[in-house]
């Protein structure tokens, strides 16, 4: 178990969960160059009976009530920023199951007999979550919602009878910028509210300065083989910090060039001369940091509610490297995994870790870190072509391993990107060892075409890539012209296309998301019509207002105004009504002759 997920077995298996419990854990893993993965995990359980009786203790009431109201069986919400650099950082944390595409991603199983009912509940859910998490989740409308068929499977234990009556809906907002306002509600849901325990390290400044960060909320029912079912709320924050960047002081974050004598130079170069020429080799220097440096604050004890069995902080480092913890903490080493060390911490003492500089050469390469594991699959996606009419999408999927990889590739595309499905093709790159099996790469296709302005395209492909092969998956599309009111204010920016979701089935289940794309649509020159509209509107408004005022308004002195103007008007109105009535009566009696009378009557009344 040298996997990045080797910390998982430490978390107590679900078979042993008691009805109500909470635990949290922070895993630190130095990555190549100056990157450091910090993976926070908070898990709270509540029994289904308590949940249904609205008896909330560790489960946040705000979220619980939303789930009950919207009939949500299982919920997954992701806030992600940045991209995971799989080539240098290796496998994703949690095998990619706790991250979303850039922006916000939400999928949930809702209790619904029909699709209409599901849509209704989905609307309720997105709107309620939008308020709770300060995110524009309410913009997940019909055009951004899909119903995945094979990509997502329920993670919780659902009885087959309930599962038959649930609907899975998936929505994504690629353009949503995740920021501090999303972190605050996230922290509020924790039992210790970010005041104690590992959550006290979560600082918005550091979190959103990270090269990659993903916040995940998962709610799922867990039914152990014995004992009662529990509802589990799992909150996860994964962030890849740049150590050099994080270590800069808070009040002086500008990366000014360091003084000349602080540069780390390669002195073996013939031209090396202090204060003249310096070939930098600082990238060969390993990481050294303290916990308080990289998170900007120290860790304030542990959360009193947490399970004492679970060590709150674990670090993945070669066993030879020195790591010092503050007093009161005691280190645990695991015999089956020598690159892992965990720390138990006193409840009230402040905790910090100090990683000292490694001395060359150490175990685990010159950088003194645990070598990241190669992922099962690399995925990269980009647009091809140019111009504003047609385009293409190319996904490059590389299988670096010795086993063939089977996976589901899912795209949720906006309706204005009209996919030509007949152009969909998968081919093995010429440089791959076995190029003759291109024909049966795509095993199955689930395709739900888009409807203009109503729903987007849903495309799910079941693919299989032979070992050590690169596959190019391409399809063409047409860019449609929008109505001019449908363009956003920053029309020339382009439109975001959500990340493709890859769910591997073989050799092991994991998730990969590609980066999102920016799609240029044919954009009219808004400046001219907009200027015309704005200028004419302004002119008309100014001129009309003034002229109308001059024509209509009559200036009278205050003493000239009849005192009971209002009363007179009311009386005149009543009189008018009376006359009209009598006129109608008279007209009925004397034929059409009397029709003039009410007119003259009103003029008299004036």
């Amino acid at each position, binding site marked *: 178990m040298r996997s990045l997920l080797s910390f998982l077995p430490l978390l107590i298996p679900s078979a042993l969960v008691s009805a109500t419990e909470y635990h949290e854990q922070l895993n630190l893993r130095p990555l190549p160059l100056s990157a450091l993965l910090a993976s926070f995990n908070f898990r709270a359980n509540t029994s289904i009976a308590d949940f249904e009786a609205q008896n909330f203790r560790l489960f946040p009431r705000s979220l619980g009530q939303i789930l009950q109201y919207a009939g949500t069986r299982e919920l997954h919400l992701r806030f992600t920023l*940045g991209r995971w650099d799989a080539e240098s950082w290796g496998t994703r944390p949690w095998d990619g199951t706790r991250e979303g595409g850039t922006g916000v991603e939400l999928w949930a199983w809702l209790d619904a007999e029909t699709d209409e009912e599901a849509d209704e509940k989905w609307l309720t859910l997105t709107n309620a979550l939008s308020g709770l998490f300060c995110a524009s989740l309410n913009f997940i409308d019909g055009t951004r919602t899909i119903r995945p068929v094979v990509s997502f499977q329920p993670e919780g234990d659902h009885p087959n009878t309930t599962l038959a009556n649930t609907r899975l809906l998936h929505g994504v907002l690629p353009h949503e910028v995740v920021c501090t306002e999303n972190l605050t509600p996230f922290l509020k849901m924790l039992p210790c509210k970010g005041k104690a325990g590992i959550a006290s390290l979560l600082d918005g400044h550091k979190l959103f300065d990270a090269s990659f960060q993903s916040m995940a909320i998962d709610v799922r029912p867990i039914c152990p083989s014995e004992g009662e079912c529990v509802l589990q709320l799992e909150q996860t924050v994964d962030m890849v910090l740049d150590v050099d960047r994080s270590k800069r002081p808070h009040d002086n974050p500008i990366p*000014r060039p360091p003084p000349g004598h602080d540069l780390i*130079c390669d002195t073996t170069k013939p031209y090396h001369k202090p204060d003249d020429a310096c070939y930098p080799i600082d990238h060969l220097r390993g990481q050294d940091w303290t916990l308080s440096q990289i998170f900007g604050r120290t860790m304030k004890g542990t959360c009193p509610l947490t399970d004492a069995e679970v060590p709150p902080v674990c670090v993945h480092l070669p066993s030879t490297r020195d790591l010092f913890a503050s007093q009161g903490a005691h280190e645990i080493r695991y015999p089956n995994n020598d690159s892992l060390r965990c720390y138990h911490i006193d409840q009230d003492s402040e905790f910090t870790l100090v990683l000292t500089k490694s001395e060359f050469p150490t175990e685990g390469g010159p950088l003194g870190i645990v070598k990241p594991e190669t992922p099962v699959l690399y995925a990269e996606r980009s647009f091809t072509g140019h111009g504003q009419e047609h385009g293409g999408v190319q996904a490059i999927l590389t299988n670096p391993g010795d086993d063939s990889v089977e996976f589901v590739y899912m795209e949720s595309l906006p309706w204005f990107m009209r996919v030509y499905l007949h152009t969909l093709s998968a081919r093995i790159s010429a440089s791959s060892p076995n190029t003759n099996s291109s024909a049966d790469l795509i095993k199955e296709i689930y395709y739900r075409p888009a409807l203009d302005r109503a729903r987007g395209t849903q495309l799910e492909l079941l693919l299989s890539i032979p070992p050590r092969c690169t596959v190019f998956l391409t399809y063409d599309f047409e860019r449609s012209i929008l109505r001019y009111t449908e363009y956003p204010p920053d029309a020339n920016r382009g439109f975001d296309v959500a990340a493709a979701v890859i769910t591997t089935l073989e050799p092991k289940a994991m998730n990969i998301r590609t*980066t999102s794309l920016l799609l240029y649509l044919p954009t009219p020159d808004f400046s001219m019509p907009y200027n015309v509209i704005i200028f004419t509107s302004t002119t008309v408004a100014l001129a009309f207002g003034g002229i109308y005022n001059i024509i209509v308004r009559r200036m009278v002195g205050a003493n000239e105004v009849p005192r009971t103007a209002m009363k007179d008007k009311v009386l005149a109105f009543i009189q008018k009504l009376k006359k009209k009535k009598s006129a109608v009566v008279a007209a009925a009696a004397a034929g059409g002759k009397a029709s003039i009378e009410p007119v003259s009557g009103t003029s008299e009344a004036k």
Partner: protein
Amino acid sequence: MPRLLSTALSLRRDPRLLRIPPYVSAFCIAIGVVWLLLLPLDDYSRRTYVSENALLPGQVHTYFGGSEQHIFRAFRHEVDLLADKNNYEVNDKLESILTGFGVKVGRQNYTYHSAGQKYTGENVYGILQAPRGDATEAIVLVAAWKSIDEQLNRNGIALVLTLARYFKRWSLWSKDIILLLPPDSTTGTQAWVDAYHDAHDSKHVSPLPLKSGALQGAIAIDYPHEQRYHELHIIYDGTNGQLPNLDLINSIVNIAGGQMGIETTVQQMTGHTDSYQDRLQTMLRGMLYQGLGYPTGPHSSFIPYHVDAITLQPTGEGWHDEMAMGRVVEGSFRSLNNLLEHLHQSFFFYLLMQKNRFVSIGTYLPSAMLLAANFTIMAIFLWVKSGQPTVKDVDSAKEKNDGMEHKGDAAQASWNPLAVERNLLSPLTFVAICHSISAIPLFVFNHLGLNTLPLAFLIFSVASTVLPAIFSFAAASLQKSTLQYFQLTKSFSLLILGVSLATLSTLNFSLAFLVGLLASPLTFIRPTNSVATRGIFAMLLIITSPPIVILTTAWTSGVTLTEVLKAASLGWNVWGMYTPIVIWCMWWPAWLVGMTNTLSPISKA
């Protein structure tokens, strides 16, 4: 009002009306040229301004400097060590330096064939991923190993490497930064940009192993200059005369001038005094480069893909150093980084008079349009005239009698409303033949090897001069060449020329203007039986014939004919330059028709 109308209608039938068009044509040409000469005046040109608010040029502090200079010097030593190495060895070293910073590096091989020569190389490029970005947008920093003048771009390469290391430390980038280091300033970037947009010919150019998002802008550094420099030369002409958004140039001028105190200059106009002459000279130089449509630097290849790009070239002797150059690039990248939308606010069609003075398309377009209109007016006039033999009678009567017996009334009386049938087949066939043989020079000059090119061109020049004589002889022997035949051939030929030039002027104003001006004698030549007039016409046409103009231009600008032909062929084969089409398929057939008409003896009707 009705009287006015009836006067106008009766005037329509006045044959005197038919004498006006040639004067209108001449007037159009004169106005077109004068219009252009007026543009540099203050009343017609405007000061530039930054239109895109997001750019905020020069509003940020730039910190590049200090100990970065030590690193710069080290990288320059590294570049010196690589000076004699081949492309692959150079790229190996560059790749190792870039990967050291944590930049993702890709390589791309390409081979182009043009004029029998092989242009091959390997691009190396790095993608500095935006720390919190998502690979949706990117900006490009280019430094070609060989500068525009084929020197080692020693400072440019070192500066890009130093900047890459410096940029890596900042977390504020919203777009990926692509560092492109092609082996030369001409073919390398083209191969890379083509492959980035999947528009490459996969037989010669390999695809890119790494990609980022949509390109938002590109800045190339051309810095072989060894001493401290005085000013920054901004090169902005793209392939086929396409230009980058004016906001990009404005921002650089603003950052270099306002923030760094570095003078900027355009079109090699060092010491621009802002006088009328200097402005006109700048504009004409700009028009010449635009008209040639030839790429002027490594940035040129980006512009056809709607990626705004410029090349910065330090020139002159002064006191600014590499760090100042680095700060200009830093400031520009910070500005581009601010962009929320693709550059679209400012002008894409403009003529620069100075770094901060320009004319926009609305102001300059009429001059080229008037030149194009002169051909169309003449074509319509000839079409009308060819159907009215009475007018011809009047004209011939005038010619014969050398005086007018009956003016006005008599002319009106001789007006014959019954138009003569136009014989369209032979004129149309002749014009079609002239246009179809224009494919020959286009093909020959773009496919011949470098050894045979100058010879082929000379043979073609001679052939092109002799061909009209053969044509006129053949036409005369095949049929009786009437005046109507000449009028119709000229009408069709000028009609095509006028329409094509008017269209071209919206795409490449300068090319349309230059071709329009050089082809303007075609409007006025006509078949005549006077040997002296014919000789004068023929001489005028030979002087303004496409081959002679090319030879003269090459001779006056001190470039050998071989180089011109090689460049033209390279432009066609690598950059998709359409100037050869304009010259050989638009201008040359029109000239051929005109010359044939001049040489043909007119047979008495």
